Protein backbone atom coordinates (compact mmCIF):
# COMPACT_ATOMS: atom_id res chain seq x y z
CA UNK A 1 0.00 0.00 0.00
CA UNK A 2 1.43 3.38 -1.00
CA UNK A 3 1.96 5.63 1.96
CA UNK A 4 2.59 9.32 1.79
CA UNK A 5 5.92 10.69 2.80
CA UNK A 6 5.89 11.47 6.48
CA UNK A 7 5.60 15.20 7.05
CA UNK A 8 7.94 16.70 9.56
CA UNK A 9 6.81 19.10 12.23
CA UNK A 10 9.15 22.04 12.88
CA UNK A 11 11.18 21.70 16.04
CA UNK A 12 9.89 23.59 19.01
CA UNK A 13 6.25 23.05 18.15
CA UNK A 14 4.51 22.21 21.36
CA UNK A 15 1.45 20.07 21.48
CA UNK A 16 -0.82 20.57 24.37
CA UNK A 17 -4.39 19.43 24.58
CA UNK A 18 -5.62 22.93 23.89
CA UNK A 19 -3.23 23.70 21.12
CA UNK A 20 -3.49 20.75 18.82
CA UNK A 21 -3.03 22.19 15.37
CA UNK A 22 0.41 22.56 13.83
CA UNK A 23 2.05 25.78 12.82
CA UNK A 24 0.63 27.73 9.93
CA UNK A 25 3.65 28.17 7.71
CA UNK A 26 2.10 27.59 4.31
CA UNK A 27 3.20 24.00 4.08
CA UNK A 28 0.96 22.64 6.73
CA UNK A 29 -1.99 24.83 5.98
CA UNK A 30 -4.18 21.95 5.00
CA UNK A 31 -3.64 19.83 8.09
CA UNK A 32 -6.55 19.30 10.36
CA UNK A 33 -6.72 18.22 13.99
CA UNK A 34 -9.43 15.79 14.86
CA UNK A 35 -10.47 13.91 17.92
CA UNK A 36 -10.73 10.16 17.90
CA UNK A 37 -12.46 9.05 21.04
CA UNK A 38 -12.89 9.01 23.95
CA UNK A 39 -16.09 7.31 22.88
CA UNK A 40 -15.02 5.89 19.56
CA UNK A 41 -16.16 2.26 19.30
CA UNK A 42 -12.77 1.03 18.12
CA UNK A 43 -10.79 2.49 21.00
CA UNK A 44 -11.81 -0.38 23.30
CA UNK A 45 -12.45 1.74 26.32
CA UNK A 46 -12.02 5.42 26.75
CA UNK A 47 -8.94 6.38 24.81
CA UNK A 48 -8.78 9.77 23.18
CA UNK A 49 -6.40 10.24 20.28
CA UNK A 50 -5.72 13.76 19.09
CA UNK A 51 -4.83 13.23 15.46
CA UNK A 52 -3.34 15.82 13.16
CA UNK A 53 -4.05 14.71 9.63
CA UNK A 54 -2.95 15.87 6.23
CA UNK A 55 -5.60 14.53 3.91
CA UNK A 56 -5.83 10.98 5.15
CA UNK A 57 -2.27 10.71 6.44
CA UNK A 58 -1.54 10.96 10.13
CA UNK A 59 1.04 13.65 10.78
CA UNK A 60 0.94 13.58 14.54
CA UNK A 61 -0.89 11.50 17.09
CA UNK A 62 -1.18 12.39 20.76
CA UNK A 63 -2.95 9.89 23.01
CA UNK A 64 -4.84 11.39 25.91
CA UNK A 65 -5.48 8.95 28.73
CA UNK A 66 -6.77 9.08 32.27
CA UNK A 67 -10.50 8.80 31.70
CA UNK A 68 -10.61 5.52 33.61
CA UNK A 69 -8.26 6.58 36.38
CA UNK A 70 -9.63 5.07 39.58
CA UNK A 71 -6.64 5.42 41.90
CA UNK A 72 -6.06 1.71 42.41
CA UNK A 73 -2.47 2.27 43.55
CA UNK A 74 -3.61 4.83 46.13
CA UNK A 75 -6.48 2.68 47.34
CA UNK A 76 -4.20 -0.33 47.78
CA UNK A 77 -2.13 1.63 50.30
CA UNK A 78 -5.13 1.78 52.62
CA UNK A 79 -6.16 -1.87 52.36
CA UNK A 80 -4.68 -4.95 53.93
CA UNK A 81 -2.78 -7.29 51.62
CA UNK A 82 -5.74 -9.60 51.40
CA UNK A 83 -8.18 -6.80 50.58
CA UNK A 84 -5.94 -5.22 47.96
CA UNK A 85 -6.18 -8.44 45.96
CA UNK A 86 -9.65 -7.59 44.71
CA UNK A 87 -8.39 -4.29 43.33
CA UNK A 88 -6.08 -6.13 40.97
CA UNK A 89 -9.05 -7.84 39.33
CA UNK A 90 -10.31 -4.48 38.22
CA UNK A 91 -7.12 -3.26 36.56
CA UNK A 92 -7.13 -5.47 33.52
CA UNK A 93 -10.65 -6.68 33.60
CA UNK A 94 -10.31 -9.12 30.73
CA UNK A 95 -7.61 -11.16 32.43
CA UNK A 96 -8.14 -10.79 36.18
CA UNK A 97 -6.52 -14.12 37.04
CA UNK A 98 -3.23 -13.07 35.51
CA UNK A 99 -3.33 -9.91 37.61
CA UNK A 100 -4.10 -11.97 40.71
CA UNK A 101 -1.15 -14.18 39.90
CA UNK A 102 1.28 -11.27 39.59
CA UNK A 103 0.01 -9.72 42.80
CA UNK A 104 0.13 -12.99 44.71
CA UNK A 105 3.67 -13.74 43.55
CA UNK A 106 4.88 -10.33 44.66
CA UNK A 107 3.27 -10.63 48.09
CA UNK A 108 4.66 -14.14 48.46
CA UNK A 109 8.14 -12.89 47.65
CA UNK A 110 7.76 -10.16 50.27
CA UNK A 111 6.60 -12.73 52.81
CA UNK A 112 9.39 -15.11 51.84
CA UNK A 113 7.03 -18.05 51.38
CA UNK A 114 7.80 -18.71 47.73
CA UNK A 115 9.27 -22.14 48.45
CA UNK A 116 6.20 -23.19 50.44
CA UNK A 117 3.95 -22.95 47.39
CA UNK A 118 3.49 -26.57 46.40
CA UNK A 119 3.34 -28.10 42.95
CA UNK A 120 -0.41 -28.49 42.95
CA UNK A 121 -0.94 -24.77 43.52
CA UNK A 122 1.58 -23.93 40.82
CA UNK A 123 -0.04 -26.24 38.30
CA UNK A 124 -3.52 -24.95 39.05
CA UNK A 125 -2.30 -21.38 38.70
CA UNK A 126 -0.68 -22.15 35.36
CA UNK A 127 -3.84 -23.81 34.03
CA UNK A 128 -5.98 -20.87 35.06
CA UNK A 129 -3.55 -18.22 33.81
CA UNK A 130 -3.26 -19.90 30.42
CA UNK A 131 -7.03 -20.30 30.13
CA UNK A 132 -7.22 -16.62 30.91
CA UNK A 133 -4.70 -15.89 28.19
CA UNK A 134 -6.86 -17.72 25.66
CA UNK A 135 -9.95 -15.86 26.86
CA UNK A 136 -8.18 -12.50 26.61
CA UNK A 137 -6.85 -13.28 23.15
CA UNK A 138 -10.34 -14.33 22.06
CA UNK A 139 -11.70 -10.93 23.06
CA UNK A 140 -8.87 -9.29 21.18
CA UNK A 141 -9.50 -11.44 18.13
CA UNK A 142 -13.22 -10.79 18.14
CA UNK A 143 -13.05 -7.06 18.65
CA UNK A 144 -10.10 -6.30 16.40
CA UNK A 145 -11.59 -8.38 13.59
CA UNK A 146 -14.90 -6.61 14.14
CA UNK A 147 -13.15 -3.28 13.73
CA UNK A 148 -11.87 -4.44 10.38
CA UNK A 149 -15.32 -5.56 9.30
CA UNK A 150 -15.38 -9.26 10.15
CA UNK A 151 -18.56 -9.27 12.16
CA UNK A 152 -19.05 -12.99 12.59
CA UNK A 153 -15.67 -13.37 14.34
CA UNK A 154 -16.97 -11.31 17.21
CA UNK A 155 -19.82 -13.71 17.89
CA UNK A 156 -17.70 -16.83 17.45
CA UNK A 157 -15.00 -15.59 19.82
CA UNK A 158 -17.45 -14.63 22.53
CA UNK A 159 -19.04 -18.07 22.22
CA UNK A 160 -15.69 -19.74 22.96
CA UNK A 161 -14.80 -17.32 25.71
CA UNK A 162 -18.05 -18.09 27.44
CA UNK A 163 -16.90 -21.71 27.90
CA UNK A 164 -13.75 -20.49 29.64
CA UNK A 165 -15.78 -18.17 31.84
CA UNK A 166 -17.98 -21.13 32.74
CA UNK A 167 -14.87 -22.91 33.96
CA UNK A 168 -13.95 -19.89 36.08
CA UNK A 169 -17.45 -19.75 37.48
CA UNK A 170 -17.27 -23.41 38.35
CA UNK A 171 -13.97 -22.87 40.13
CA UNK A 172 -14.65 -19.66 41.99
CA UNK A 173 -18.34 -18.88 41.69
CA UNK A 174 -17.67 -15.75 39.67
CA UNK A 175 -17.26 -15.33 35.94
CA UNK A 176 -14.86 -12.43 35.75
CA UNK A 177 -13.68 -10.81 38.99
CA UNK A 178 -12.68 -14.08 40.56
CA UNK A 179 -9.84 -13.15 42.97
CA UNK A 180 -9.30 -16.89 42.96
CA UNK A 181 -5.50 -16.86 43.01
CA UNK A 182 -4.50 -15.28 46.29
CA UNK A 183 -1.30 -14.80 48.25
CA UNK A 184 -0.58 -18.18 49.79
CA UNK A 185 -2.31 -20.33 47.20
CA UNK A 186 -5.86 -20.48 45.97
CA UNK A 187 -9.07 -19.29 47.57
CA UNK A 188 -10.70 -22.73 47.48
CA UNK A 189 -10.16 -26.30 46.41
CA UNK A 190 -10.50 -27.03 42.71
CA UNK A 191 -13.98 -28.50 42.27
CA UNK A 192 -14.50 -32.11 41.14
CA UNK A 193 -14.94 -32.25 37.39
CA UNK A 194 -12.60 -29.31 36.78
CA UNK A 195 -10.04 -31.47 35.04
CA UNK A 196 -12.61 -33.00 32.70
CA UNK A 197 -14.19 -29.69 31.86
CA UNK A 198 -10.88 -28.13 30.89
CA UNK A 199 -9.99 -31.20 28.84
CA UNK A 200 -13.33 -30.96 27.03
CA UNK A 201 -12.48 -27.40 26.12
CA UNK A 202 -9.02 -28.42 24.93
CA UNK A 203 -10.57 -31.14 22.78
CA UNK A 204 -12.88 -28.94 20.81
CA UNK A 205 -11.07 -25.62 20.76
CA UNK A 206 -8.30 -26.50 18.24
CA UNK A 207 -10.97 -27.18 15.64
CA UNK A 208 -12.50 -23.77 16.26
CA UNK A 209 -9.12 -22.10 16.12
CA UNK A 210 -8.62 -23.77 12.76
CA UNK A 211 -11.88 -22.24 11.60
CA UNK A 212 -10.67 -18.80 12.60
CA UNK A 213 -7.50 -19.30 10.63
CA UNK A 214 -9.66 -20.28 7.66
CA UNK A 215 -11.78 -17.18 8.08
CA UNK A 216 -9.00 -14.64 8.53
CA UNK A 217 -5.43 -15.76 8.00
CA UNK A 218 -5.65 -16.09 4.23
CA UNK A 219 -8.60 -13.82 3.68
CA UNK A 220 -7.60 -11.27 1.05
CA UNK A 221 -9.71 -8.52 2.61
CA UNK A 222 -8.07 -9.09 5.96
CA UNK A 223 -4.59 -9.29 4.44
CA UNK A 224 -5.07 -5.99 2.64
CA UNK A 225 -5.95 -4.28 5.89
CA UNK A 226 -3.15 -5.79 7.95
CA UNK A 227 -0.09 -6.70 5.85
CA UNK A 228 2.65 -4.05 5.97
CA UNK A 229 0.40 -1.75 7.94
CA UNK A 230 1.61 0.24 10.94
CA UNK A 231 5.00 -1.36 11.19
CA UNK A 232 7.43 -0.88 14.01
CA UNK A 233 10.99 -2.05 13.98
CA UNK A 234 12.62 -4.15 16.62
CA UNK A 235 14.66 -1.16 17.86
CA UNK A 236 11.61 1.08 18.13
CA UNK A 237 9.67 -1.57 20.00
CA UNK A 238 12.44 -1.97 22.57
CA UNK A 239 13.17 1.75 22.92
CA UNK A 240 9.55 2.79 23.44
CA UNK A 241 8.80 0.05 25.91
CA UNK A 242 6.60 -2.38 24.02
CA UNK A 243 6.19 -5.81 25.54
CA UNK A 244 4.28 -8.99 24.85
CA UNK A 245 2.90 -9.78 21.40
CA UNK A 246 3.74 -6.28 20.14
CA UNK A 247 7.40 -6.85 20.93
CA UNK A 248 7.41 -10.41 19.62
CA UNK A 249 5.64 -9.33 16.46
CA UNK A 250 8.70 -7.21 15.70
CA UNK A 251 11.00 -10.17 16.01
CA UNK A 252 12.31 -10.01 19.57
CA UNK A 253 12.40 -13.46 21.11
CA UNK A 254 11.38 -12.60 24.62
CA UNK A 255 8.90 -14.22 26.92
CA UNK A 256 9.05 -13.77 30.69
CA UNK A 257 7.73 -17.30 31.10
CA UNK A 258 10.93 -18.57 29.49
CA UNK A 259 13.46 -16.01 30.62
CA UNK A 260 12.49 -15.50 34.26
CA UNK A 261 10.21 -18.49 34.89
CA UNK A 262 7.67 -18.14 37.66
CA UNK A 263 5.05 -20.47 39.07
CA UNK A 264 6.72 -23.53 37.59
CA UNK A 265 6.75 -22.49 33.93
CA UNK A 266 10.27 -23.86 33.55
CA UNK A 267 8.86 -27.40 33.57
CA UNK A 268 6.56 -27.02 30.60
CA UNK A 269 7.52 -27.27 26.99
CA UNK A 270 6.26 -24.58 24.70
CA UNK A 271 7.51 -22.33 21.94
CA UNK A 272 7.58 -18.56 21.63
CA UNK A 273 5.86 -17.46 18.42
CA UNK A 274 7.74 -14.54 16.90
CA UNK A 275 6.94 -12.35 13.91
CA UNK A 276 9.41 -10.78 11.55
CA UNK A 277 7.79 -7.74 9.92
CA UNK A 278 6.39 -5.98 12.94
CA UNK A 279 3.16 -5.18 11.13
CA UNK A 280 -0.43 -5.70 12.20
CA UNK A 281 -0.58 -9.11 10.57
CA UNK A 282 2.46 -10.39 12.46
CA UNK A 283 1.01 -9.31 15.76
CA UNK A 284 -2.19 -11.08 14.75
CA UNK A 285 -0.33 -14.29 13.95
CA UNK A 286 1.71 -14.17 17.16
CA UNK A 287 -1.44 -14.08 19.25
CA UNK A 288 -3.14 -16.80 17.22
CA UNK A 289 -0.14 -19.07 17.69
CA UNK A 290 0.13 -18.18 21.36
CA UNK A 291 -3.30 -19.66 21.91
CA UNK A 292 -2.02 -22.98 20.59
CA UNK A 293 1.00 -22.79 22.87
CA UNK A 294 -1.28 -22.04 25.80
CA UNK A 295 -3.25 -25.17 25.07
CA UNK A 296 -0.03 -27.19 25.10
CA UNK A 297 0.88 -25.75 28.49
CA UNK A 298 -2.57 -26.43 29.94
CA UNK A 299 -2.47 -30.05 28.81
CA UNK A 300 0.96 -30.59 30.39
CA UNK A 301 -0.10 -28.87 33.60
CA UNK A 302 -3.25 -30.96 33.86
CA UNK A 303 -1.37 -34.19 33.17
CA UNK A 304 1.20 -33.46 35.83
CA UNK A 305 -1.21 -32.05 38.42
CA UNK A 306 -0.31 -33.61 41.79
CA UNK A 307 -2.54 -33.69 44.82
CA UNK A 308 -1.95 -31.55 47.83
CA UNK A 309 -3.33 -28.72 49.89
CA UNK A 310 -4.61 -25.74 47.96
CA UNK A 311 -3.10 -23.21 50.37
CA UNK A 312 0.10 -22.97 52.33
CA UNK A 313 -0.17 -24.43 55.80
CA UNK A 314 1.40 -21.37 57.41
CA UNK A 315 -1.45 -20.13 59.56
CA UNK A 316 0.09 -16.66 59.76
CA UNK A 317 -0.68 -16.24 56.05
CA UNK A 318 -3.56 -18.51 55.11
CA UNK A 319 -6.66 -18.91 57.28
CA UNK A 320 -7.34 -22.30 58.88
CA UNK A 321 -10.22 -24.42 57.55
CA UNK A 322 -13.60 -23.49 58.90
CA UNK A 323 -14.18 -26.73 60.79
CA UNK A 324 -11.12 -26.11 62.97
CA UNK A 325 -12.36 -22.77 64.18
CA UNK A 326 -15.08 -24.20 66.38
CA UNK A 327 -12.80 -26.69 68.09
CA UNK A 328 -9.32 -25.24 68.17
CA UNK A 329 -8.38 -22.09 69.99
CA UNK A 330 -5.25 -21.36 67.97
CA UNK A 331 -7.24 -21.72 64.78
CA UNK A 332 -9.78 -19.22 66.04
CA UNK A 333 -7.07 -16.74 67.01
CA UNK A 334 -5.36 -17.11 63.67
CA UNK A 335 -8.62 -16.64 61.84
CA UNK A 336 -9.43 -13.56 63.88
CA UNK A 337 -5.99 -12.01 63.44
CA UNK A 338 -5.95 -12.66 59.71
CA UNK A 339 -9.32 -11.14 59.01
CA UNK A 340 -9.07 -8.18 61.36
CA UNK A 341 -5.48 -7.17 60.90
CA UNK A 342 -3.90 -9.31 58.18
CA UNK A 343 -0.31 -10.39 57.97
CA UNK A 344 2.79 -8.23 58.24
CA UNK A 345 5.47 -8.92 55.65
CA UNK A 346 8.96 -7.86 56.73
CA UNK A 347 10.36 -4.58 55.44
CA UNK A 348 11.54 -4.85 51.90
CA UNK A 349 10.57 -4.58 48.30
CA UNK A 350 9.77 -7.03 45.53
CA UNK A 351 9.42 -6.56 41.79
CA UNK A 352 7.77 -9.52 40.14
CA UNK A 353 7.43 -9.82 36.37
CA UNK A 354 4.85 -12.01 34.73
CA UNK A 355 3.83 -12.53 31.15
CA UNK A 356 0.23 -11.37 31.05
CA UNK A 357 -1.80 -11.75 27.83
CA UNK A 358 -1.04 -8.15 26.87
CA UNK A 359 2.62 -8.14 27.75
CA UNK A 360 4.86 -7.79 30.75
CA UNK A 361 2.82 -7.22 33.87
CA UNK A 362 5.07 -6.42 36.80
CA UNK A 363 4.06 -5.47 40.31
CA UNK A 364 6.40 -3.54 42.57
CA UNK A 365 5.45 -3.98 46.19
CA UNK A 366 7.09 -2.13 49.03
CA UNK A 367 6.44 -3.11 52.62
CA UNK A 368 7.30 -1.05 55.67
CA UNK A 369 6.44 -3.88 58.04
CA UNK A 370 2.82 -2.87 58.52
CA UNK A 371 -0.20 -4.95 57.46
CA UNK A 372 -0.88 -2.63 54.53
CA UNK A 373 1.25 -2.27 51.40
CA UNK A 374 3.37 0.86 51.63
CA UNK A 375 3.32 1.18 47.87
CA UNK A 376 1.95 -0.96 45.09
CA UNK A 377 3.13 0.08 41.65
CA UNK A 378 1.79 -1.71 38.62
CA UNK A 379 3.85 -1.82 35.46
CA UNK A 380 0.92 -2.31 33.15
CA UNK A 381 1.69 -3.80 29.73
CA UNK A 382 -0.88 -1.67 27.90
CA UNK A 383 0.65 1.52 29.29
CA UNK A 384 3.95 0.72 27.63
CA UNK A 385 2.32 -0.55 24.46
CA UNK A 386 0.17 2.55 24.13
CA UNK A 387 3.33 4.64 24.13
CA UNK A 388 4.37 2.84 20.95
CA UNK A 389 1.07 3.57 19.20
CA UNK A 390 2.00 7.10 17.98
CA UNK A 391 5.25 5.70 16.56
CA UNK A 392 3.23 3.06 14.78
CA UNK A 393 0.55 5.23 13.24
CA UNK A 394 2.36 8.44 12.34
CA UNK A 395 2.72 8.43 8.58
CA UNK A 396 0.04 5.85 7.96
CA UNK A 397 -3.54 6.31 6.87
CA UNK A 398 -6.42 7.28 9.09
CA UNK A 399 -8.26 4.01 8.51
CA UNK A 400 -5.17 2.07 9.57
CA UNK A 401 -5.31 3.64 13.03
CA UNK A 402 -8.19 1.34 13.80
CA UNK A 403 -6.20 -1.69 12.70
CA UNK A 404 -3.25 -0.51 14.80
CA UNK A 405 -5.30 0.02 17.95
CA UNK A 406 -6.74 -3.45 17.53
CA UNK A 407 -3.34 -5.00 17.03
CA UNK A 408 -1.85 -3.41 20.14
CA UNK A 409 -4.67 -4.92 22.21
CA UNK A 410 -5.16 -2.03 24.59
CA UNK A 411 -6.92 -2.29 27.89
CA UNK A 412 -7.65 1.15 29.22
CA UNK A 413 -8.56 -0.10 32.67
CA UNK A 414 -4.96 -1.04 33.16
CA UNK A 415 -3.48 1.97 31.38
CA UNK A 416 -5.21 4.34 33.78
CA UNK A 417 -5.46 2.07 36.83
Amino acid at each position, binding site marked *: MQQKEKLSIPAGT*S*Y*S*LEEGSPLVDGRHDDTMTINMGPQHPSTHGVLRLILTIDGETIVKAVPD*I*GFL*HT*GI*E*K*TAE*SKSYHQALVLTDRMEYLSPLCNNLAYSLSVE*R*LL*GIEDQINEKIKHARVVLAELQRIASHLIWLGTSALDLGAQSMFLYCFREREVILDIFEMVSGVRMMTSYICPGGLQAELPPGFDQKVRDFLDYFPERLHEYHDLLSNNQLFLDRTKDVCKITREQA*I*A*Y*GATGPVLRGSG*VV*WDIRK*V*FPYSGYEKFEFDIPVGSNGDVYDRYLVRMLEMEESMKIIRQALDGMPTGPYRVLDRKVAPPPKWQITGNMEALIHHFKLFTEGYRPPK*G*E*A*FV*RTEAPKG*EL*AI*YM*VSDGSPKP*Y*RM*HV*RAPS*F*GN*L*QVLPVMIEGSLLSDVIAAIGSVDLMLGEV*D*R
Partner: protein
Amino acid sequence: MVITAASTVDVVRETFPQAVVEIVESNGEQTIVLKPEYLLTVCAHLRDKLGYDFLETVTALDWLERVPRYDVVYHVLSYSNRCFIRLKVRVGERGEEYPVVPSVVRIWPAANWYEREVYDMFGIKFSNHPDLRRILMPPDWTTHPLRKDYPLSGFDLPEPHWGGQVPYDVDPGVGSYYEQSLRSAEGRQVDDPRRALNPNQEPGTLPQSNEETL
Protein backbone atom coordinates in the same frame (compact mmCIF):
# COMPACT_ATOMS: atom_id res chain seq x y z
CA MET B 1 32.17 -11.58 29.94
CA VAL B 2 28.73 -12.51 31.14
CA ILE B 3 26.93 -9.57 32.61
CA THR B 4 24.70 -10.27 35.57
CA ALA B 5 23.05 -8.00 38.09
CA ALA B 6 25.87 -8.67 40.56
CA SER B 7 28.60 -7.91 38.06
CA THR B 8 26.77 -4.73 37.03
CA VAL B 9 26.84 -3.58 40.63
CA ASP B 10 30.59 -4.19 40.74
CA VAL B 11 31.17 -2.35 37.48
CA VAL B 12 29.15 0.66 38.60
CA ARG B 13 30.90 0.73 41.95
CA GLU B 14 34.32 0.64 40.33
CA THR B 15 33.61 3.03 37.46
CA PHE B 16 31.59 5.62 39.37
CA PRO B 17 32.68 5.42 43.02
CA GLN B 18 31.57 9.00 43.59
CA ALA B 19 28.04 8.36 42.26
CA VAL B 20 27.01 5.44 44.42
CA VAL B 21 25.31 6.21 47.69
CA GLU B 22 24.42 2.71 48.73
CA ILE B 23 23.93 -0.79 47.36
CA VAL B 24 21.05 -2.83 48.72
CA GLU B 25 20.05 -6.41 48.05
CA SER B 26 16.48 -7.30 48.88
CA ASN B 27 14.73 -10.56 48.00
CA GLY B 28 17.47 -11.40 45.51
CA GLU B 29 17.13 -8.10 43.64
CA GLN B 30 20.03 -5.67 43.39
CA THR B 31 19.44 -1.98 43.99
CA ILE B 32 21.94 0.79 43.35
CA VAL B 33 21.18 4.09 45.06
CA LEU B 34 22.71 6.92 43.06
CA LYS B 35 23.29 10.60 43.55
CA PRO B 36 20.89 12.54 41.28
CA GLU B 37 23.65 14.51 39.56
CA TYR B 38 25.30 11.30 38.30
CA LEU B 39 22.09 9.59 37.19
CA LEU B 40 22.42 10.36 33.48
CA THR B 41 26.08 9.36 33.34
CA VAL B 42 25.44 6.02 34.97
CA CYS B 43 22.32 5.33 32.90
CA ALA B 44 24.13 6.07 29.65
CA HIS B 45 26.92 3.74 30.73
CA LEU B 46 24.40 1.02 31.60
CA ARG B 47 22.74 1.26 28.21
CA ASP B 48 25.80 1.65 26.01
CA LYS B 49 28.39 -0.47 27.73
CA LEU B 50 26.40 -3.04 29.69
CA GLY B 51 23.47 -3.64 27.34
CA TYR B 52 20.59 -2.46 29.52
CA ASP B 53 18.39 -1.52 26.59
CA PHE B 54 14.93 -1.67 28.10
CA LEU B 55 13.49 0.59 30.78
CA GLU B 56 10.63 -1.27 32.38
CA THR B 57 9.17 1.38 34.61
CA VAL B 58 9.85 4.53 36.56
CA THR B 59 8.02 5.13 39.79
CA ALA B 60 8.52 6.85 43.10
CA LEU B 61 8.15 6.23 46.80
CA ASP B 62 7.17 8.87 49.32
CA TRP B 63 8.80 8.48 52.75
CA LEU B 64 7.00 11.29 54.46
CA GLU B 65 9.24 11.76 57.51
CA ARG B 66 12.55 11.05 55.82
CA VAL B 67 14.91 13.65 54.39
CA PRO B 68 15.34 13.40 51.42
CA ARG B 69 11.69 12.58 51.12
CA TYR B 70 11.31 10.72 47.82
CA ASP B 71 12.86 7.71 46.12
CA VAL B 72 12.60 7.76 42.34
CA VAL B 73 12.88 4.13 41.28
CA TYR B 74 13.97 2.88 37.86
CA HIS B 75 13.77 -0.74 36.78
CA VAL B 76 15.98 -1.51 33.82
CA LEU B 77 16.42 -4.75 31.99
CA SER B 78 18.81 -6.15 29.44
CA TYR B 79 17.36 -8.23 26.63
CA SER B 80 20.74 -9.49 25.51
CA ASN B 81 22.07 -10.47 28.93
CA ARG B 82 18.77 -11.44 30.54
CA CYS B 83 19.35 -9.56 33.75
CA PHE B 84 17.76 -6.63 35.50
CA ILE B 85 18.68 -4.04 38.04
CA ARG B 86 16.95 -1.38 40.10
CA LEU B 87 18.24 2.17 40.35
CA LYS B 88 17.15 4.65 42.97
CA VAL B 89 17.63 8.35 43.37
CA ARG B 90 16.78 10.14 46.60
CA VAL B 91 15.45 13.66 46.28
CA GLY B 92 13.28 16.15 48.15
CA GLU B 93 14.86 18.31 50.83
CA ARG B 94 12.73 19.57 53.68
CA GLY B 95 10.23 22.13 52.46
CA GLU B 96 11.03 21.51 48.81
CA GLU B 97 7.67 21.43 47.04
CA TYR B 98 8.78 20.15 43.63
CA PRO B 99 12.06 18.20 43.70
CA VAL B 100 13.87 17.93 40.39
CA VAL B 101 15.45 14.84 38.85
CA PRO B 102 17.20 14.74 35.45
CA SER B 103 15.04 13.06 32.87
CA VAL B 104 16.25 9.83 31.23
CA VAL B 105 14.04 10.19 28.15
CA ARG B 106 17.11 10.86 25.98
CA ILE B 107 18.53 7.51 27.04
CA TRP B 108 15.38 5.41 27.10
CA PRO B 109 12.46 6.99 25.19
CA ALA B 110 10.08 4.72 27.10
CA ALA B 111 10.66 6.89 30.17
CA ASN B 112 8.48 9.63 28.69
CA TRP B 113 5.12 8.52 30.03
CA TYR B 114 6.44 6.97 33.21
CA GLU B 115 8.08 10.24 34.19
CA ARG B 116 4.90 12.09 33.37
CA GLU B 117 3.05 9.71 35.65
CA VAL B 118 5.54 10.29 38.48
CA TYR B 119 5.18 14.04 38.00
CA ASP B 120 1.41 13.73 38.02
CA MET B 121 1.23 11.49 41.06
CA PHE B 122 4.13 12.76 43.20
CA GLY B 123 4.96 16.24 41.95
CA ILE B 124 8.55 15.35 41.14
CA LYS B 125 9.77 17.33 38.16
CA PHE B 126 12.08 15.98 35.51
CA SER B 127 14.47 18.46 33.97
CA ASN B 128 14.83 18.37 30.19
CA HIS B 129 11.72 16.26 29.79
CA PRO B 130 10.22 16.98 26.35
CA ASP B 131 6.59 17.04 27.40
CA LEU B 132 6.16 17.21 31.17
CA ARG B 133 2.45 17.53 31.83
CA ARG B 134 -0.16 15.57 33.71
CA ILE B 135 -1.12 12.23 32.23
CA LEU B 136 -3.80 10.59 34.39
CA MET B 137 -5.33 13.41 36.43
CA PRO B 138 -7.18 16.27 34.72
CA PRO B 139 -4.83 18.91 33.29
CA ASP B 140 -5.99 21.64 35.70
CA TRP B 141 -5.50 19.50 38.80
CA THR B 142 -3.18 21.15 41.32
CA THR B 143 -2.27 18.45 43.85
CA HIS B 144 -0.44 15.14 43.63
CA PRO B 145 -2.48 12.15 44.76
CA LEU B 146 0.10 9.48 45.57
CA ARG B 147 1.89 11.61 48.13
CA LYS B 148 1.45 10.19 51.58
CA ASP B 149 -0.02 13.42 52.97
CA TYR B 150 -2.77 13.41 50.34
CA PRO B 151 -6.07 12.26 51.86
CA LEU B 152 -7.63 9.07 50.64
CA SER B 153 -10.99 10.79 50.44
CA GLY B 154 -12.39 14.14 51.40
CA PHE B 155 -13.38 17.38 49.85
CA ASP B 156 -10.99 19.79 51.52
CA LEU B 157 -8.72 20.05 48.51
CA PRO B 158 -8.25 23.29 46.64
CA GLU B 159 -9.20 21.72 43.34
CA PRO B 160 -10.96 23.71 40.64
CA HIS B 161 -13.35 20.86 40.00
CA TRP B 162 -14.80 21.18 43.45
CA GLY B 163 -14.28 24.92 43.76
CA GLY B 164 -15.43 25.16 47.33
CA GLN B 165 -18.67 23.49 46.47
CA VAL B 166 -19.34 19.83 46.90
CA PRO B 167 -21.31 18.13 44.17
CA TYR B 168 -24.29 16.10 45.30
CA ASP B 169 -24.00 17.74 48.68
CA VAL B 170 -26.96 16.28 50.51
CA ASP B 171 -26.56 12.69 51.56
CA PRO B 172 -29.95 11.65 52.94
CA GLY B 173 -28.39 8.89 55.03
CA VAL B 174 -26.21 11.10 57.23
CA GLY B 175 -27.91 13.32 59.77
CA SER B 176 -29.55 16.56 58.89
CA TYR B 177 -28.16 18.93 56.37
CA TYR B 178 -26.22 21.13 58.76
CA GLU B 179 -25.00 18.28 60.93
CA GLN B 180 -23.12 16.58 58.15
CA SER B 181 -19.41 16.96 58.32
CA LEU B 182 -16.62 16.00 56.03
CA ARG B 183 -13.89 13.63 56.98
CA SER B 184 -10.35 13.29 55.77
CA ALA B 185 -8.47 10.00 55.58
CA GLU B 186 -7.57 10.07 59.26
CA GLY B 187 -11.16 10.65 60.29
CA ARG B 188 -10.53 14.20 61.44
CA GLN B 189 -13.21 16.71 60.71
CA VAL B 190 -12.37 19.44 58.32
CA ASP B 191 -13.90 22.82 57.92
CA ASP B 192 -17.10 22.18 56.08
CA PRO B 193 -17.52 24.45 53.10
CA ARG B 194 -21.10 23.28 52.77
CA ARG B 195 -22.08 25.22 55.88
CA ALA B 196 -21.49 28.38 53.92
CA LEU B 197 -23.77 27.29 51.16
CA ASN B 198 -27.32 28.27 50.64
CA PRO B 199 -29.39 25.11 50.19
CA ASN B 200 -31.31 26.88 47.45
CA GLN B 201 -28.18 27.84 45.62
CA GLU B 202 -27.99 26.76 42.01
CA PRO B 203 -25.34 24.03 41.60
CA GLY B 204 -22.22 25.34 39.94
CA THR B 205 -22.68 28.97 40.95
CA LEU B 206 -20.61 30.82 43.50
CA PRO B 207 -21.89 30.81 47.09
CA GLN B 208 -23.67 33.87 48.39
CA SER B 209 -22.21 35.80 51.28
CA ASN B 210 -22.64 34.24 54.71
CA GLU B 211 -24.97 36.88 56.09
CA GLU B 212 -27.54 36.13 53.47
CA THR B 213 -27.36 32.38 53.69
CA LEU B 214 -27.35 31.77 57.43
